[in-house]
């Protein structure tokens, strides 16, 4: 084996001191030389196990080899063969627990930086190449409706359009992207990247109708009446969970969804140029330690908060956020109050939150999720002053559309599907992404959408 550099090439990044004052992207991307050098670290394994870690089964050594050879066009073509959103996945996939976790190099050294290289190829195409589109199969003259324009909906739509179906996406909000747009902040995933990749899906012939809340504006039954022969539900898990402790309706207590939507979709950080206000005080507590919590904490910092705390009831090891994002948050001066849980929020006479009562926790036995159960330590309560609280304790599927669709759901409110076809309990209705799994990841949503697109094709071919 030729000598392999044991470490990934580092990602150039904005300096933490600087970046907490702006919303520009933190990770700046590889240049051509670095990308080629990093791609050359790949051993081009005969049995590339890395692919098993990618829910959309990208030919990883294939695209890496093309980058190593400097043939970036060929590289992006391989990527787009199975993934219509590579610039997005390259940025937000939790690679460390997916493709890169399985990379053989990772056994001794650091794995190949697959995600960074995927991003490189996609960005290179956007900036320097003429974008080409795959040929769609002959029109089948069959209409399919996709509900929700997040990664699941976009992927399912793109796949079906390539197969020759007439596909329309119906989206409740006024803009595309789902969580990619309203949840993940500009400094991790710029809007221009989402625009470009949504545009790609549109160019495949997909029609996107925004401002359509299916179940309200049009019902599922009406979609069938209008001649749609199959329907895919990619409506995500948008309903915010609260912990139902006293004081959660005080002013200054936000759900992460409200906080991030005001900031990202409505561009609150550009107020008053944009009309939607967002308010953040001096001392912020973000409850939870997933990606959503990290994004909320880092957004608070950029909006001018002096001190931002992550309050999490388990320990560092259990934090569900991507390692890279925890690391970024630490670099930006976010304080981690681990093994700590809120008991109540206390307000002033005008209804604004001013303090949180917190309690210390310890870890007990393993629970059903395989993590050690947090147990409150009696008598360890204390009061800390906070003027802003962002509750980031997860989300569940919005029940409205599911009731309208009359599909079977679990007791957690997620949709039941046939794992092989993506079909729900109601023939002709398919589902995938967060609406099936509960809040998960972009690439898992896309993988599920891919399965459903094949399921829909099979269903319509046999109908």
């Amino acid at each position, binding site marked *: 084996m030729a000598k392999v550099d044991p470490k990934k090439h580092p990602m150039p990044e904005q300096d933490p001191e600087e970046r907490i004052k702006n919303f520009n992207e933190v990770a700046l991307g590889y240049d051509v030389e670095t990308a080629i050098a990093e791609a050359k670290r790949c051993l081009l394994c005969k049995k590339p196990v890395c692919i098993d870690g990618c829910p959309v089964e990208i030919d990883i050594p294939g695209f890496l080899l093309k980058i190593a050879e400097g043939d970036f066009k060929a590289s992006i073509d391989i990527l787009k063969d199975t993934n219509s959103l590579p610039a997005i996945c390259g940025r937000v996939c939790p690679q460390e627990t997916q493709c890169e976790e399985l990379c053989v190099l990772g056994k001794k050294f650091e794995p190949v930086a697959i995600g960074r290289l995927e991003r490189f190829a996609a960005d290179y195409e956007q900036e320097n190449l003429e974008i080409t589109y795959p040929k769609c199969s002959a029109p089948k003259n069959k209409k399919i409706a996709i509900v929700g324009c997040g990664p699941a909906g976009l992927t399912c739509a793109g796949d079906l359009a390539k197969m020759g179906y007439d596909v329309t996406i119906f989206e409740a909000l*006024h803009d595309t992207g789902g969580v990619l747009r309203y949840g993940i902040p500009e400094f991790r995933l710029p809007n221009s990247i989402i625009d470009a990749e949504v545009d790609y899906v549109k160019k495949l012939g997909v029609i996107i109708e925004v401002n359509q809340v299916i179940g309200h504006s049009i019902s599922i039954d009406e979609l069938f009446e209008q001649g749609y022969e199959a329907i895919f539900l990619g409506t995500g898990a948008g309903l915010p969970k609260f912990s139902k402790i006293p004081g959660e309706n005080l002013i200054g207590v936000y759900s992460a969804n409200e906080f991030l939507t005001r900031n990202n979709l409505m561009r609150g950080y550009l107020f008053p140029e944009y009309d939607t206000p967002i308010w953040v005080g001096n001392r912020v507590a973000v409850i939870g330690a997933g990606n959503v919590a990290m994004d909320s904490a880092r957004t608070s910092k950029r909006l001018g908060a002096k001190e931002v705390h992550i309050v999490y009831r388990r320990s560092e090891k259990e934090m569900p956020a991507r390692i890279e994002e925890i690391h970024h948050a630490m670099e930006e001066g976010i304080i981690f109050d681990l093994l700590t849980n809120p008991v109540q929020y206390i307000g002033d006479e005008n209804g604004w939150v001013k303090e949180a009562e917190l309690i210390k926790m310890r870890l007990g036995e393993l629970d059903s999720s395989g993590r050690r159960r947090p147990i409150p330590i009696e008598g360890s309560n204390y009061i800390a002053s906070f003027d802003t609280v962002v509750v980031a304790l997860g989300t569940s599927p919005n029940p409205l559309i599911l009731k309208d669709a009359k599909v079977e759901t679990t007791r957690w409110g997620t949709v039941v599907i046939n794992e092989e076809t993506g079909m729900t309990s109601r023939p002709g209705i398919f589902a995938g992404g967060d609406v099936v799994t509960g809040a998960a990841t972009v690439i898992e949503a896309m993988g599920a959408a891919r399965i459903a697109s094949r399921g829909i094709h099979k269903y319509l071919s046999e109908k």
Partner: protein
Amino acid sequence: MFKIVRKEELAEDIKLMEIDAPLIAKKAKPGQFIIFRSHDKGERIPLTIADFDRKRGTITIVFQEVGKTTEELGTFDEGDSILDFVGPLGKPSDHDRKEEGKVICIAGGVGTAVIFTELRNIKEHGNYTITIQGSRCKSLLFWTDRMKHFSDEYIITTDDGSLGIKGFVSQPLEDILKKQAESIAYILAIGPVPMMAACVKVAKNYNVKAYVSLNTIMVDGTGMCGSCRITVGDKSMFACVDGPEFDGWYVDWKELAQRNNRYLPAEKQSLERYRELVKGKNR
């Protein structure tokens, strides 16, 4: 894009617009609302469906110019278009409006537009309707003919006495309930928060059911953000999907008033900046 096909000035700072939105018109029911965003830097703002015309395919909105977004919308003309217009949102309020007897509908200020389709619906279901329509002064009253048309009894109040009874809507309400509380099936009060709270208090004193429509601050209007949440009884509700109509007896009015004020400084800044920008233009 959604075209404004008709614009009318109803009263000082209160404007009506009829919007071309056939899909929404097909679905609209009393008590529901839309959310609009006038341009790509605009805020998402909820307005009640003040009327709908399924044949013409239009939705009527009536709004009071209270801040930047509504003031700016007021400058749009017939023929102009609004960028985003989504609905119908919220629960329709017609389920328990079967024939129930005597109903008191109380409209405060621009609440007249919000209550209108409900009043019509209640009347058309064979109920006996008593309407109390109130405002600060005579010049702010609108749609009095329409309201009267669907009312068996009709009362006007103005704070300054420029028309009808001088005082607040809660006074005639109290007078009626004093005499015949047992014969009233329920009241429906829609208007500013203090007015709804006052009406509910009176009704509760006489043990009469009181419905209200809550104008919380919203963003998406689909149950995704929780901006609109409000305590009703011992539960936190999302006004956009659990409402906007609620049983007024159990609403936490203090919390609602406080939550609706939470962006006051920013709203003021936005309005002042806007007025500065348009100075010398239309206004």
